[in-house]
């Protein structure tokens, strides 16, 4: 499906974490040209902001703070989507690098501890789906995950996945959304979630 709305002005926050290219490509497949930027002005003016990331929490937070992006992000009022590390950085605290994060979601991020293989790398299901981010998405639909740390369950949880323990596969508060999985790599169901976000 293609979204033809020239009014959509999507900013992808550029910082020292990879994975930005695949988000750009996924949006292109939906017919959307996004801009990759760390400009405060461009991010503020965007209709939607995406905060992707694969990387390490403490160095990512340091990078954001050095550029004032931490304060900017929490001040934003347009629909905002963190993906993977992006979502984890929106939580209160991450065990990775003993990192105080942005504190948008009332959740803590900790390392998977158990017998199973870490990182969780592959396809798992999401359930207890809430909010319009999951419009048209079936309970227990499959999403692609790659992560060693996970956010605990709480009042902001809008999707649950079980790997070693049940954890927040997605979080929501006000205009802020976060997903632990990679919608940009999760086939049709992932594309639909990105599309739902753009429609917010």
């Amino acid at each position, binding site marked *: 499906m293609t979204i033809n709305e020239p009014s959509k002005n999507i900013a992808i926050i550029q910082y020292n974490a990879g994975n930005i290219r695949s988000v750009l490509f996924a949006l292109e497949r939906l017919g959307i040209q996004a801009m990759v930027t760390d400009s405060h002005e461009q991010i503020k003016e965007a209709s939607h902001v995406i905060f992707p990331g694969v990387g390490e929490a403490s160095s990512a937070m340091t990078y954001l703070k050095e550029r004032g992006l931490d304060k900017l992000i929490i001040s934003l009022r347009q629909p905002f989507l963190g993906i993977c590390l992006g979502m984890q950085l929106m939580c209160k605290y991450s065990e990775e690098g003993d990192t105080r994060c942005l504190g948008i979601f009332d959740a803590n991020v900790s390392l998977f501890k158990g017998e199973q293989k870490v990182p969780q*790398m592959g396809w798992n299901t999401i359930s207890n789906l809430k909010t319009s981010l999951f419009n048209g998405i079936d309970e227990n639909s499959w999403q692609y995950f790659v992560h060693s740390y996970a956010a605990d369950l709480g009042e902001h949880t809008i999707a649950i996945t079980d790997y070693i323990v049940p954890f927040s596969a997605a979080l929501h508060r006000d205009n802020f959304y976060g997903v632990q999985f990679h919608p940009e790599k999760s086939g049709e169901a992932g594309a639909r979630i990105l599309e739902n976000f753009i429609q917010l």
Partner: protein
Amino acid sequence: MPLAKRIIPCLDIKDGQTVKGVNFVDLKTIGDPVELAARYAEEGADELVLLDIMATHEGRKTFAALVKRVAKELNIPFTVGGGISAPADVGLLLEAGADKVSVNSAAFRSPSLLSDLASLFGRQCIVLAVDVRLDEQGWQVYLNGGRMPTGKPCIDWVLEGVERGAGEVLLTSMSHDGTRDGFAIELTSQVSSAVNVPVIASGGAGNLQHFADVFQAGQADAALAASVFHSGEIPIQQLKTFLRNQSIHIR
């Protein structure tokens, strides 16, 4: 819940085309990798691997351009590999849109490459590809596409590679590759239970039951094959239905 077992078609790439041969000889052209990749994704493949089998220095940019075309089209993860010997190679391929890269001979010759790559790019995107063959000394690591014996036992190298930073192991039995007699079950099981990262079994897929065997007895996290998918002998949907009916956890 455990993760779904992954089905991974592998595309061997030469001069921008998908090719297939047995043990890297007698290569036949199969077709456009971008079209094939998209078709496999549509049919339910969980992931893809693209290998630059010539892996020449001159061909590197052509391969990166192809990786970018595939990344634009594909909505599932994919790994690329072939002749990767330096962080710059990896940077180029990840920048082109690959999700993971696999390293093989260069990592064996210089194991610190794995730690360097893991710290630069994160271990989740570094796949250690290991080609092994069963000989008088047991399962032994081979280099250069399975042509050069190293004398190193498979399990020793896998353990060291994971310790140094590999986030996944792509284990190819050259003794089984091209035979269509089934995967190296015991070897896969031994490697999979020895490491705390996912193991992709490769080499020997010939029928549906071979996949069930490598997931159950072999404890593989993923199974990779090429010719049975390229030829259409094993349609991915049919394979997944078969595995589901055997109570194997499949997407």
